[in-house]
Structure formats: structure tokens, C-alpha cells
């Protein structure tokens, strides 16, 4: 427990991922397997649930401190974490802490709590354990028994540390770790050695766990008519989700993001649904927050991303689906050289074996007999809560990277807002030496002075944008900034609010991280509105209304 608490402290004292991983490596190298197994259990976000009712913990702390119930609650209000509140309230003990290993703590204290029936005895065991630990150990113990142990690492990072200790690649470790895994010394030893599964026999298991390279679509800039006849193309919606590859093997199901992050842990219901697929199936698709057969805003999905393990509440709160649009491997056969039209047929066959409400669904196909049919679909994108349409050549193989010509995304025109340039910062690379990174603001309220200006309105920052201007325009704006700097704050110039730009953006979402209370996604400068005065720029109200309407669009049924 001392060593595990030490690990907790080390990870708690740094925000650097590399240091957290290094701390875990040291830990796993030093401790016996039975402790390492439990440490891995907790670090990877697994929890021992319902060990003791929180009422018992309340009683125990009230008993030992003689504090009234209400001040314990007030303390909790101000700390915001029950485990920590208990640790802070416990009287400072003078005695030396007992030596208890992590695995002993789990078996002799935590699991025993669950088996004791009488609450009086549970309370006694809690008090005894608190007494046996020092103050940080108490905090860690409290976090473990209240299922609230967090050290800010994803499962991917834990796997990375384990992989270094076992001297294998992260993909191999991810594969060993996937599937059923018990927090026992044996099980941990198998993680370290690969057990008798034999990583090196046949095609390496490391490869089997690895995603295929994702094929990416290009934005369509030319008129679609240039693509030839519409009959050569498969048409799908362009969803605003998380591109992912699902690898279903005999032992395990892994989901990889395009950033090569293993994200299976964040989407357990998708991994579960995959169990009904035949082993050695690999699907390509988009994970989307999904309800009643339509997408929910991306912001909701974001809450699920980067989480090691998902609380049950979130499952129903943010339902997700894997919208599959391609199959890369079937029965262990690599299908990528086959034409899309065949792959799609196989995909439909595979998915027809799943129950209708499964979290894995085929991407709907849109039919278009003419290019203008396609345009109609695209114009209906917003009603379907999608970003546009995808065009995929029916005869195309599954390419690598960004090979041009076979996959296109044709997005709808984004939203726009007229905003005022308020801050500027220098660019980098080709644009260094010029002010190219701009922050834009909109007015906090409408102009009530009937165009006389100066009624004390303020510009609230709403977006940062770098792209969209021609080199010539950039130079002009740069010159303006140099002549109209009001104040310098480090690298940032506060600029006289005079230039108005039309910003285009893809989406808008609520955000309490920003002063404006909302955040604009993928803003870019559409054009320089030299015809507009700063007073003519939009107000926050406009954006708020837009935000409300998009939220309504997406959650109408609720």
C-alpha cells in the first residue's frame, strides 16, 4: 500500500504524460505480481463496486470526530469529493502506519467489507483500516472503496507502461490485455510473458491487434458533374463523429481511433455488439452519438472520448452507435483489394446477423439518379444532423492514406457570422513575421444608440481563425495590425476593433470554458467585409439563437 500510494503521489504531482507513464513503469518493475495485478486493475479504471454504503462511512467519520452531521456535509460541499473529505476530517494520528500490501488491503479489508453483513462490523473494519494507514494512504483507500479512484491516465497509457516493462509493442500488450482479465498474480504474469498463446506463432498477434491504415476522403472542390456519371458512385451521409476501426477477433474486440488510440474502453456497448459477429471481422466506420435513428451533437460524443471506463449512467445518457460503412477483413481474409461494391454487399450480409437494435449499424445508402438528386440530398443534410454527403467510387479498392480520386466528401455550406478582429498573434513557418493568427469578437448586446456608437457595448471573443485569406489580404491586415495596436500582451496584440470579417464555421456548441458560453468549431475567414463597419458586426445573441436552434434540431424528440 505504501508503494501504491507512492505511485499515486507521483502521478498526482505531474501533468506530463511521459512522467506518469515512467512512474507506472517503475512501479510495475518493483512490486510483486499480486500487487501489480490489483494496481493494474485500478489504474485501468476498473472498480470494485458496492463495497460499503456511504452511510456507513458517514457514521464512521462522525463517530471518530464527534462532529455533527451537518458540518460533515458542509465540508463535503466545500471539498466536492467524499473520499477526500473523509481523509481530511480524520484526526491526525501519531502512530506509525501498519504495513499492508495493496493485495492484502483488497482481500482483507475491501472485499471483506462486502461479505460482512452487520453495519456495526463494517464500520469497525473501516475505522480499523483508517487507523492502520497514514493520511495519503487513507485518501487512496477511501477513493478505492468509493469507486472514485482516478489518476488521469487512459488505458492506452497504462498499456504503454506495461508494454515497456514486458518489452513488447503496445499493440501486443493491448491484445494480451483485451478480453477477460483477472486481477491475479497468474493473470499478470501471463500479461508479462504472453502465456501459452504464443505471440510469435503464425501471423503475429501484434499484427492481428493492429488497425489497417485508414483511407481518407478529400473535400470536393469541383462541381460533382466532373466526376462522370452518378451511377458510378456510392453515396452516404457525411457524419460528424469519430472515425474508427473495429477489430473483432476470437478473444477480443478492439476499437481503434484514426489517431491510433485504443478506444474500446470508452464504447463498451459497441464492443459488446461485436460479439455477435463472426471472429476475424474488421469494420471501418464512424462512432456517433446516436438516438432514435439520428445523430446527436458531437459535443455529447466528446464526453465519452478519452474515458477509460464509462459509468453506466453515461451509457444511457449518451447512447452511441458504430455506423459501419466498410468491411476490411472477413473470416480473416483481407478484402481491401476487392471493389467497394462487393465489400458493401459483404458488409450488409455480416450486419444482417445482428439484432435490429444493435449498436453496430450499416451506414444508410442514398440513391441518386442524377447529380441534381445528389444536390437535393446534400441540401437536406442539416435536417438529418449530418455535415454533407460522401461520394465513393463503386469500383474502388480500399486505398491507403489520402490517395485522391475515389472518396470525396461534399459538405454543406457552413454557418457564417460577421465578427470584428480584436487580437492578433504572429504566425509560424511560411507566415512567421506576419500577424496571421486572429481572434474575433462579436458584440455582447445589440446597439441601442441607433448607430451613434459608444453605448458601452463590448466585444466578446468567440473564435480564433488562421485560414481563409489570400497572401495579399494577409499582408494588408498585418499592416493594419502594426499601425493599430492598442496594447501588447506578450506575443498578443490587442488591436483597434475596426476590421470586420465573415467567419464560416461548421458547428456551434455550448462551452463553459469560454467567456461567450459557446464555442465555434472549425472557424475560417470566408471574406473580408470591407463594406461593413465594426458596429455592423453580429451580436452574441445571434450566435446564442443559432446555438439554441441547433440544439433543438438535434434533440427535438426529448
Amino acid at each position, binding site marked *: 500500500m505504501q508503494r501504491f500510494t507512492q505511485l499515486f503521489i507521483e502521478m498526482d504531482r505531474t501533468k506530463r504524460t511521459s512522467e506518469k507513464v515512467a512512474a507506472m513503469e517503475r512501479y510495475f518493475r518493483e512490486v510483486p505480481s499480486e500487487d501489480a495485478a490489483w494496481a493494474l486493475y485500478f489504474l485501468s479504471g476498473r472498480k470494485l463496486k458496492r463495497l460499503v454504503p456511504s452511510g456507513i462511512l458517514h457514521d464512521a467519520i462522525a463517530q471518530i470526530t464527534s462532529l455533527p452531521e451537518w458540518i460533515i456535509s458542509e465540508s463535503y460541499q466545500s471539498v466536492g469529493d467524499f473520499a477526500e473529505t473523509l481523509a481530511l476530517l480524520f484526526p491526525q494520528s501519531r502512530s506509525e502506519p501498519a504495513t499492508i500490501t495493496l493485495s492484502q488491503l483488497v482481500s482483507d479489508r475491501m472485499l471483506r467489507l462486502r461479505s460482512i453483513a452487520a453495519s456495526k462490523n463494517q464500520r469497525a473494519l473501516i475505522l480499523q483500516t483508517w487507523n492502520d494507514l497514514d493520511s495519503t494512504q487513507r485518501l487512496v483507500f477511501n477513493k478505492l472503496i468509493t469507486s472514485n479512484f482516478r489518476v488521469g491516465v487512459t488505458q492506452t497509457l497504462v498499456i504503454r507502461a506495461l508494454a515497456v516493462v514486458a518489452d513488447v509493442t503496445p499493440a501486443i500488450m493491448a491484445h494480451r490485455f483485451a478480453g477477460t482479465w483477472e486481477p491475479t498474480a497468474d493473470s499478470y504474469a501471463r500479461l508479462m510473458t504472453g502465456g501459452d498463446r504464443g505471440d510469435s506463432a503464425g501471423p503475429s498477434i501484434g499484427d492481428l491487434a493492429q488497425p489497417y491504415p485508414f483511407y481518407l476522403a478529400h473535400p470536393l472542390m469541383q462541381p460533382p458533374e466532373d466526376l462522370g456519371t452518378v451511377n458510378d458512385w456510392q453515396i452516404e451521409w457525411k457524419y460528424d463523429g469519430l472515425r474508427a476501426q473495429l477489430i473483432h477477433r476470437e478473444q477480443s474486440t478492439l476499437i481503434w481511433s484514426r489517431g491510433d488510440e485504443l478506444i474500446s474502453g470508452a464504447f463498451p456497448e459497441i464492443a459488446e455488439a461485436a460479439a455477435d459477429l463472426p471472429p476475424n471481422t474488421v469494420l471501418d466506420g464512424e462512432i456517433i452519438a446516436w438516438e432514435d435513428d439520428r445523430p446527436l451533437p458531437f459535443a455529447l460524443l466528446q464526453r465519452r472520448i478519452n474515458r477509460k471506463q464509462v459509468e453506466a449512467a453515461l451509457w444511457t445518457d449518451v447512447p452511441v452507435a458504430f455506423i459501419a460503412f466498410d468491411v476490411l477483413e472477413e473470416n480473416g481474409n483481407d478484402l481491401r483489394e476487392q471493389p467497394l461494391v462487393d465489400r458493401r454487399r459483404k458488409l450488409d450480409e455480416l450486419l444482417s446477423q445482428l439484432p435490429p437494435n444493435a449498436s453496430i449499424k450499416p451506414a444508410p445508402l442514398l440513391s441518386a439518379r442524377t447529380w441534381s438528386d445528389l444536390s437535393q440530398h446534400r441540401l437536406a443534410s442539416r435536417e438529418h444532423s449530418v455535415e454533407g454527403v460522401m461520394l465513393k467510387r463503386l469500383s474502388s479498392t480500399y486505398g491507403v492514406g489520402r490517395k485522391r480520386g475515389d472518396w470525396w466528401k461534399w459538405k454543406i455550406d457552413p454557418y457564417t457570422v460577421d465578427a470584428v478582429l480584436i487580437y492578433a498573434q504572429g504566425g509560424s513557418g511560411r507566415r512567421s513575421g506576419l500577424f496571421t493568427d486572429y481572434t474575433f469578437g462579436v458584440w455582447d448586446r445589440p446597439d441601442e444608440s441607433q448607430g451613434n456608437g459608444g453605448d458601452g457595448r463590448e466585444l466578446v471573443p468567440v473564435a480564433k481563425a488562421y485560414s481563409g485569406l489570400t497572401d495579399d489580404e494577409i499582408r494588408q491586415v498585418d499592416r493594419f495590425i502594426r499601425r493599430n495596436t492598442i496594447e501588447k500582451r506578450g506575443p498578443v496584440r490587442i488591436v483597434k476593433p475596426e476590421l470586420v470579417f465573415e467567419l464560416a464555421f461548421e458547428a456551434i456548441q455550448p462551452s463553459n470554458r*469560454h467567456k461567450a458560453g459557446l464555442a465555434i468549431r472549425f472557424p475560417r475567414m470566408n471574406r473580408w467585409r470591407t463594406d461593413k463597419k465594426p458596429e455592423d458586426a453580429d451580436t452574441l445573441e445571434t450566435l446564442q439563437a443559432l446555438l439554441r436552434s441547433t440544439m433543438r434540431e438535434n434533440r427535438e424528440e426529448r
Partner: protein
Amino acid sequence: MPELIQQTERGLYCEAGDFHIDPWQPVDRAVITHAHSDHARWGSRAYLAAAGGIEVLRSRLGPDAAIQGIPFNESIGMNDVRVSLHPAGHILGSAQVRVEYQGEVWGISGDYKLQTDPTCDAFEPVACHTFITESTFGLPIYRWKGPEEVFDEMNEWWRENQERRRTSIIYAYALGKAQRILASIDASIGPIIVHGAIARFLGAYEAARIKLPPTHPADPELVKSTRGTALVIAPPSAVNSPWLRKFGRQSSAYASGWMQVRGNRRRANVDRGFVLSDHVDWDGLLSTIRATGAHTIGVTHGYTDQVARYLNEHGINARIYHTRFSDRGEEALEPDESEINHTDTEDTEKNKELDS
């Protein structure tokens, strides 16, 4: 007959002596407990303060303020009222105010702590009938470790940072806390750089003969040559400011009683939190109340409701005195929302939104 000390719009007022204590608006006569800005306000006609605190007070009130200093434990008359000042142990020159009139005694604590602090006189309890106490940390979760232990941790942190070639940045309130750290840290570890907001008070400490180690301003040459070894002491307002960038790779820490709660440290976005407070903790608050022998307790400045309720439930007559200032005192964290950095969630490519 009105009470000896009343709560008014301008602060605590003694009618019999016609003076205010720590008024927040200009008055004729102000008795000042200490130089923090929520206690010492500019603009009154005449000030009375502890002699040892005059220099720091002047740096706050300006050169023209009429300040009279009296030694601790010596009383002066104001009309028929006897007024004396007693060490509060909070910062240099901080005082409690004792007011006596026709046999009735009131004690007003100002801010105070019981822990040792080499930069000020140690707290002395004042026997009184009515005691008005601060309650900044008036919850049982706030119980301080000994300062020796905290400074050992701080020294160790500084050494570790040096091993990793990181500059150590510590945020501390500019008047009091920063100097307490200077006086207590092991200055032999490396060079110490102080922010201008802290340096401006150092002259007053020198005048009061408080021994502080040599420090340097952050001039570019020195900053360059001490990267990875120096300790930089900066006020909380410098958190995430461009000023900090010049120190290169760094580890940051915050020294405050609020660091007792981990969420506060996380919100302050620092690597380490040192629980170091210039205010009394829960146990100290209760023991001080007993030591004064007071039959009535006034609670101000902090967790007033909670402390008053607790005292009343435990047979001590208590009531609340409101202040105009935030309940969190000068140790208040000011985490501007833009300073809260979500470092644990790695940004996806989808996250290219305004990151101000």
C-alpha cells in the same frame, strides 16, 4: 445603549471612542489591523496601527497618509475608551485590537494564525468579554501541518526540480506569504528571483529588521543564467502570464491554505500545492476562542454561518458580522476560467475550437 462595537456600512465602529476598525470607506479615525487590501483602505483622515507595521502599511496607503504607530500592548485613550494592539501572527505588523470601556472588553482579531512565522510577532490571545474572530478556514477539513514539514517539502521540491533542470515557480500572496517563504526556505539551494509585486514590499521588511535572503529581480541576463536552478516567487495573478515563459522549463506550485483541497490545486492548474496559510485553522480557531475566555463570539470574514452555528450548538453564544469583502480573504484563488487547462484530456482533432 448601543453595543461598544457595532457593525455599520463602513465597517466595525466604536461609538464611545469614535473610531472605525478596518473600515472599507474613508472615515475620520481608522484603527488598522494589518496592511492587506481588504483591511487597509486608502482615504481615511487618520490611521492607528502597530508600530512594526507602519512601513508596509505606508506602501499600501501612500506617503501622505497620517499614520500613528503604537507598540504592542501599550494602550492609548480615545475619548474614554482604551485601545491597545496585540500581535496577531498573520503578517509583519499585524495586530488584534483590544477595546476597553467602563470595564467591558472587546477583542477584534483581524486575520491571525497560531503557527510560527519568522516574519512577524507570534499571536497572543487577548482576554475579553466579546471576541470577533475571522473564520477564513472555519471548517474541520482545514487543519494545518507544521510549517517545518511544509518547508521541508518545498525545499525537496526545489532540489528535485533542479535535478530535472526545471525552474521552480511558486505562487504566493505578495505581502506576507511571499516573505514568509523567503524567510523560511533553504536559500542555499539556489538563486531566488522575486516578481516586482513582491519586491516592492521588501524594503519595509528590511526596515523592520526581518532577515530575508538575497533575491534578484527577473532581468533577462539573470533569468537566462539561472534557468533550471532558480526559485521564482510570483503573485497568484501571474499564473499563466507571458512573464513566466522566459523561465523556460518549469514546475509550478501554489502556497496557500486552499491547497488543502485537491480540487483547488487542480483548478489553479499547478503541479504542486503547498498547504501554507497565514490564517488560523479549525483547531486553532476553537482553542483561541477558549483562550480568550469570551462569553460572546462574533464571527466574520469566511465560513461565518458554519462557525457560528457550530459554536451555538456547543454552548457558546455566537453571531455573524458581515464584511464587504469576499468570504475567502486575500488567499482567495482567482482562477480565471481561461486559466483552467484540461491537460488530462488529450485534444482530438475535433477539438480545434477557440482555446483562449
